[in-house]
């Protein structure tokens, strides 16, 4: 299994966008520039988000986890965008919307094999304090460390 790609260049801090489409496009472009996803990835994520929203209201700021089929992915990676001003996403499984401040874009290279990683991510979403930290912290390397520490167990252990 390839290792997860996540570094400062995949953290987009204070991103100023006016729509979720713009946010997704910028993030997908960055992943594509780095070669982690195929050129088809952006359109696939945009279409999927249109059909199946990924906005998640939490006890802190709302998050979204845009993603798509593994066939558009070269190497497993995560990109994190911290928006200057929230943009509206549809809420997962509902007709309602939520203003999203943090976007975790997932590029998954294998189907059904990312369980521990996903569970770790969900723990971030259930931790209002940590979400608040990501919104406020200005030092990208600290944000990176925090995310990796949170996800690390899944990357090292696996079992």
């Amino acid at each position: 299994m390839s290792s997860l790609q996540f570094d400062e260049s995949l953290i987009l801090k204070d991103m100023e966008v006016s729509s979720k489409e713009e946010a997704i496009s910028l993030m997908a472009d960055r992943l594509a520039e780095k070669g982690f996803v195929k050129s088809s990835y952006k359109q696939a994520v945009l279409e999927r988000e249109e059909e199946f929203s990924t906005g998640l209201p939490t006890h802190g700021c709302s998050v979204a986890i845009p993603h798509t089929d593994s066939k558009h992915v070269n190497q497993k990676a995560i990109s994190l965008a911290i928006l200057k001003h929230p943009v509206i996403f549809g809420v997962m499984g509902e007709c309602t919307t939520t203003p999203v401040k943090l976007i975790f874009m997932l590029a998954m290279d294998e189907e059904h094999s990312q369980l521990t990683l996903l569970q770790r991510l969900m723990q971030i979403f259930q931790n209002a304090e940590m979400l608040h930290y990501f919104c406020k912290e200005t030092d990208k390397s600290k944000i990176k460390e925090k995310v990796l520490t949170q996800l690390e167990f899944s990357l090292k252990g696996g079992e």
Partner: protein
Amino acid sequence: MNKKKQVLVACGAGIATSTVVNNAIEEMAKENNISLDIKQIKIAEVGSYVDTADLLVTTAMTQKEYPFTVINARAFLTGIGVDDTKKQILNELVK
């Protein structure tokens, strides 16, 4: 003996969220000694299981009417209301 219940777990692309939900339901079944036939599928594939499924747990929005109960699984991802969702699912499983 009752026939094993068939539970469909689905999200849009069948890759990210349904994996988490799938695992949560497996654990629930184990805790409660219920044996289940869990199918992790894409939401577009639900149609092929209309005759066999007893329950659909999904993070995707479903506009269609199905002959079985549909439960929104978002709570497993955010932790908000997860106990209620588990109770709802369990109620369906012991029906």
